[in-house]
Each structure stands twice: as C-alpha cells, then as structure tokens.
C-alpha cells in the first residue's frame, strides 16, 4: 500500500536528482525567447479544443498554458465502476494543447496540496530531460513551469512519468493528453495543397485495469494509493477491463455525441498513451490520415481504419458526405462494444441517393 507519506518520500529523492539537473548551465538563449510575444490560452475539456489559428499569424511566440492536476474518483462506465483517477486539468484525457512549429509551449503545472501523489509531465513533442519529466516533478502543494520549443510538427502524446512502476500506473489512472504542433502554414494534403478543417475533435483513448472482488464485481477504493497493488496485478495481465474514449464508456454518445454537417471537414485527433488502437469511422473514411501524426509526412489517403501506436497520437481529416449517425470506434470490436471504445457523430444534411440507397427494403425471399 502506498501512503501519501511514502509517495512524498519517493518524490523527495527524485526531486534531489532533478535539482542536480536543474543546476546545469542553460544552453538555450532565454534572452531571445524573452523578447517574443506571449499568448495565454484558455483550455477547454476534450473532445473540444481551444480556439487557435490553423495558419500561424506572424512569427514564433510563447504560448502559455496552466494545468492543475486533480486526483479524484470518476465513474468510467454505466455500471458506476469507479476509477481513482489522476487527471491533468480535471479531464481524461487532459486537454489538447495547440501551438505552431517554432513556437514555445510554456506550461505551468500545478499540483494542489489536496493531492496525495507527486506528478510530472513528459511531452513527446519536447526534446530532452525525458520529455520534460525530469524538470517538472511537483509534490502536492507545488507548481512548476516548463518551456520547450515545438521543433517538429504533428500530434504528440503527453503523459505523467514519475519514475518506475509509477509511470504506467499514473498513465492508466488517466494522466495523458496530447499536443498538436501545426505547421506554420497549416495542414497540407498528399500533394502539398493546403487543407483546412471546419471543426476539430480530440478523442483520447484510455485503457483501464480495475480489480475485481471474489464475486467478479469491480472493487472501489478510498484513494488511489489503496488500489496500487491490486491494480498493478491486473495491469500485468495486459488485458484492460475498460477501453474508453474521453474517460468513460459512452461519454461521446447521446447528448454528448460529436456534431457535424454534410459538407463540413473535421479533424479528429486520436491519442493513446499506452496501448495500440485502430480508429474507424463506421460509414465514413479518413480522407487524409496522418497515422503517425507527424505533419512533415504526407497523409495517407482514403483509409478505412488507421493504426495509432501506443504512445502516439494521430490525426484524420474527413469531409462528411452523408447525414446520419456515425459510430467512431476502436475497430477491435470487442473493445468497441464490450469494453467501451465507441463514440458517435450526429451529422445533419441532405441524403445523397447516388452514394447510397436502399433499392428494395427487406421482404420475403422471391421464390
């Protein structure tokens, strides 16, 4: 059992190591950065994304974000199963942060004193110091500010990585999100022609490993620390009990289904910090898909299903051609239907008989 005290002791040791790293001479010309314009971003919870320009206006700038860590119980399915969640900014996944290539992303990470554990953040978009993990470990009651230069365009995962077994445990407790670094001149298709999106949705996929009691019922724990040992045993089996979008089975359905109109182009950013997945839009396609999420590579065209490697984020651009209900799933259909990885789009507009029509409805077989 991990107590708050032990967690703190563990983090003090790591903090000492961090101090050593921090004492090294700075190589970056902080002075140059100091002269750059700054922009404060107000983030919004997924699947929505904060307002941003698709094509950068002006030169590089420092884009400021503040995220507060929240440890809290959350319900992850219709049965009321509880996860002792660890979250960036209160949501699973954490919010999508959008900047442009050449910008500086500056994050202030706050770990309030109501937390029981130390946390940090590893940006796959960043270079050095374990993605910033070494420079961002914050105990309850601390905050830290990290700045990194967005040198590569694309969609990138971020996640908590406080060392050893804490890393996977924090990640499968909800601590992951994504950064999107747009090319300064925006996205381009396979021929290098500019493409734009009318709407963007960020779908973070999580695998959860909730222990069960002798009767097979999911167990509830007072705090995150209480579940550590038993959760770790389930994790080692590598079979998740839940695979969900946006932190909860069904969280992007019904009133919360994602919306679009026929003729609109959407960009779906999909991240999975821990485990491979294969998004598929039932009844639609990926017109242009950056499967690995990196915009310097030309997008693949006309995909039916795309593969997101565990520990990465990808992006798919699609223009809706037909109205109706679309299911957006992890096309391991067992994970989609039984474990929770299903979202919906409701799409308004006119039906195109040329693309599809029911020539004859079901009737008795003609003899």
């Amino acid at each position, binding site marked *: 059992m991990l107590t708050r005290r032990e967690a703190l002791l563990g983090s003090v040791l790591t903090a000492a190591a961090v101090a050593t790293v921090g004492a090294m001479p700075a190589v970056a010309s902080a002075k140059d950065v100091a002269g750059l314009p700054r922009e404060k971003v107000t983030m919004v919870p997924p699947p929505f994304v904060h307002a941003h320009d698709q094509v950068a206006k002006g030169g590089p700038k420092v884009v400021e974000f503040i995220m507060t860590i929240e440890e809290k119980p959350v319900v992850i399915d219709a*049965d*009321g199963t509880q996860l002792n969640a660890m979250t960036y900014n209160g949501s699973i996944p954490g919010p999508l942060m959008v900047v442009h290539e050449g910008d500086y992303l500056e994050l202030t990470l706050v770990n309030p004193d109501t937390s029981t554990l130390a946390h940090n953040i590893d940006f796959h978009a960043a270079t050095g110091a374990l993605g910033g993990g070494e420079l961002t470990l914050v105990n309850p009651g601390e905050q830290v500010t990290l700045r990194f230069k967005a040198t590569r365009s694309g969609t990138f995962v971020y996640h908590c990585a406080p060392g050893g077994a804490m890393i996977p445990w924090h990640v499968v407790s909800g601590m992951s999100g994504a950064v999107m670094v747009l090319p300064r001149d925006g996205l381009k298709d396979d021929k290098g022609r500019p493409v734009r999106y009318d709407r963007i949705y960020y779908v973070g996929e999580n695998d959860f490993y909730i222990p069960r009691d002798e009767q097979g019922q999911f167990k509830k724990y007072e705090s995150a620390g209480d579940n550590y040992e038993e959760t770790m045993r389930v994790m080692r089996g590598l079979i998740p009990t839940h695979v969900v979008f946006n932190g909860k089975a069904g969280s992007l359905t019904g009133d919360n*289904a994602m919306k679009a109109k026929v003729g609109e182009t959407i960009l779906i950013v999909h991240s999975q910090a821990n485990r491979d997945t294969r998004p598929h839009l039932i009844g639609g396609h990926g017109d242009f898909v950056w499967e690995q999420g990196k915009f310097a590579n030309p997008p693949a065209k006309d995909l039916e299903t795309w593969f997101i490697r565990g520990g990465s984020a990808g992006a798919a651009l699609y223009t809706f051609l037909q109205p109706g209900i679309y*299911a957006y799933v992890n096309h391991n259909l067992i994970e989609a239907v039984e474990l929770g990885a299903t979202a919906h789009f*409701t799409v308004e507009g*006119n039906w195109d008989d040329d693309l599809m029509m*029911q020539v004859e*409805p079901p*009737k008795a077989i003609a003899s």
Partner: protein
Amino acid sequence: MSFDPVFTFGTIAAATLISMGIAHTFGESPLKFSQPVAVSELVVLGPGSFEHPQAGEFLKENHPVAAPVVQTSIDAPLEIMKYQVSVSEYGRCVADGACKPADARNVGHLPVTGVSYLDAEAYARWFSARTGGTWRLPTDVEWAYAASERFRGDIEGGESDPNNPARRWLTQYRLEASLGRKPDPEPRAQGSFGTNSKGLADIAGNVWEWTSTCYSHATIDIDGKRTASSIDNCGVHVVEGFHRTYMSNFIRDGKSGGCAVGTPPDNLGFRLVRDQPSLVQVALRRLGFS
C-alpha cells in the same frame, strides 16, 4: 437445500391469494420436488380494449414508418404476476435443476436479472409443472395492457423521409437522448418502483421484461391500418420496460444484447401470466397427465 420455515409461511400466505391451492397441485404432479413452491401474488385484470402501437418494424410503400396504432382488446380476464419473478423464486427452479443459474448473483426479494428469454421459458415450464397451472410469458399486447399508463413502446423516429432516411435516425437518436435516462444497473427490492394504476409493481423500473412476442418485419397497407405481410424472427423477442426493444433469445445482459446506439435495458427479467386451463386440460391433469 435446507428447509426454510420463513419461506413456507410465505407460501401459505401467498397460496390463499390464488384459486388453485398448492396441496391440491402436489398430489398430481408427476415430478418429485425438494420443497413446496410459492405461487406469486397475482393481479387479475378485467377484459378491455385499448390503442396499442404494435411491436416490430413497419414499412409502408417501402419506407419505414411509425408502428401502426391498433385498437386491441383483451377478451378474457388477464391473470398476471404483480411482481417480477424474484431471485429466491427463480432460485428454486435452479435448485430443482430446471433452470440455469442467473448471471446476476443477487439474493432475496429482488427481481431476478441476468436471465434470457430461454431462461424465462424454462422457468415458466417448471413453474407450471410445480403448481399445476399454465404459466407463460405475456404477449407484448398483454404486457402493454397491464403496464397501462407506464407503457411507452418503441422510441420512435416517426415516418421516414423518402428523400433522406437519416432524418428518422437522427430524430430517434435525439429523442432517446432527450429522455435523459441515466443508467441504473442495480436491481432494487420488489415494489421499489411502486405500482401502476392497475396494481402491478415495478413496471418500467430498471428491469426490462421478456415477452412471448417475436420480432417481425411487417409491410402495412397504404391506409396504414392493416398489416399486408410480415416475416417473424422468433430468435428475437420483444422486451418491454421503460422503452420497447428487441433482444436475441439467449441474451442475458441487455447492455450487450442490442440497442447499437442509444439506451440499452439496465437489466433483463420477467413476470408470467396464468392461463385458465381448458376443460380438457383439467380432465387430463386429473387423470395424471401433464
């Protein structure tokens, strides 16, 4: 199983409520049973007629339409269980080896859940043999009659726009979302959802109920009144509750058994109706045939 005095007293109390006593049944039963069986409290509904939106999917001029609402009548008095079959009642069928254990392992005076259509049928057969009555699942019409003001029927997208089938899908999807029903998976004690105007308990609570009505595709006349043709699929039956849905016979957990989009049933259970035996049946039974 050990003898349970509490249960036995309960049996006697319940038995006084019905016309056919247990002792009477016992001597004639060809099966050997471990212990007496309770006969559930019944509600007897007089004959009547009502407007009923039919179960199934309906086409008119090759386009989906809302289920036709038909003036329907119940002719004979309908004897239906006041409560859904309970965990302990179902457990006795399991103890006799005539029913498979339910998926949900609850105890006591909760409705049995985690049971399929096939389980409900097995229970009805066993219960009939044990009590000497003729017990069966209600039809969709009978259930609706008994459910009365708590009957909702399908969550209905209305008539399809021939030029845009997606409108109906979107309407249906939004309607279902707007009902705002939150998942409510934990079965509660019998009676927790109150009684309806006809005295039945727990109608449209968090346990949906199997009926004996098969899923069907029907084509209706231009006037929308009569079914011109239909094809039944009796591998799928109508399930009634907060809303009407359709489930494969072997499904025990509604959450994974249907409703590809929208709200699935929280739980699957059932209650039975009793048919008054015909004179021939009574005669055969007295001669020792079942």
